[in-house]
């Protein structure tokens, strides 16, 4: 297993590149809003979710990927069998 320092050294450029992709995509959306029309309601909701996802990345802890997955998921409805009559 690599040390934390080794992992960061190995992955830094790739993380940098991925962050730039996200930044450029957000810039593209903003440019289009300025030049054409604002986001419609559904798209604005998706845009807000991206902001919230970015906030999750800034939190401390070993399970950011799991937190993001849960954030992008529908909630578990424990009474689904009763509701579906199965």
């Amino acid at each position, binding site marked *: 297993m690599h040390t934390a320092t080794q992992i960061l050294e190995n992955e830094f450029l790739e993380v940098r590149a991925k962050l730039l992709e996200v930044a450029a995509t957000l810039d593209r959306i903003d440019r289009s809003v300025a030049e054409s029309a604002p986001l419609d309601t559904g798209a604005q909701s998706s845009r807000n979710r991206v902001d919230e996802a970015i906030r999750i990345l800034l939190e401390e802890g070993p399970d950011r990927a799991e937190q993001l*997955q849960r954030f992008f998921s529908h909630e578990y409805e424990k009474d689904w069998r009763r509701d579906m009559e*199965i």
Partner: protein
Amino acid sequence: MDYIDPHIHMVSRTTDDYATLARMGCVAMSEPAFWAGFDRGSADGFRDYFRQLTEVEPKRAAQFGIQHFTWLCINAKEAENVSLSRDVIAMIPEFIHCKNVLGIGEIGLNKNTKNEATVFLEHLDLAVKFEQQILIHTPHLEDKYQGTRMILDMLCDDSRLDRTRVLVDHVEEHTIDEVLDRGFWAGMTLYPITKCTPARAVDMIERFGGERLLANSAGDWGPSKPTAVPDLIFEMRRRGHSESLIRKVVYENPIEFFSQSPNFSFTPRDAGSDPAS
């Protein structure tokens, strides 16, 4: 390194892909029945498909020294049509004893509907009746968490099932823990955009260990990479994991899981006699 792809849809792949997989070390594969990209109109369409899975693909694979195994069902997407599903389920026993059939799969949920759940439960009955192993598809994206929990509810409510003979596939960071905790096998699917990358799969191996864990490409007709398992091998080596752990995940674990099926007549590449001796 020899490896086994436990979930790949070769009916969608070219013969060149078989050649490439063989050159990269693939010695066996299992192909669950799935959606063809369009809804089939009758049970006879599935009869032809099951012939393709049990007769045609094993021969195509054998040309490249790859042993081909398969699983039968009506997939979750077409399971929305309950009447068609019941016709297909009634037909499966015609094929269940074909020599490369490992069990019932990939059954599961797609949009987590009542019809899908109904057909899933009827597939479980079929598997129990014929003492078959089960391979399960879990939904995509935002439906995965709820769908996986629903599937686990149905499996755990059925005391007839042996959990060690059930593989819950397409696990990701938010579903793997519960699948393994409840005693099932878990499959990680290395599939661009909608599932898991090799790097994230290795993260999960590091978090959960290599027990009851499989990795597959699910290579199909969509954007996918049939050589994704070698990518996982490369990523594990790059991170300094032992060859024994890599071999366990990509070779020994599939053999251990599949060996619970009487039709898994796998012959390891090094089991033959040496013609020079």
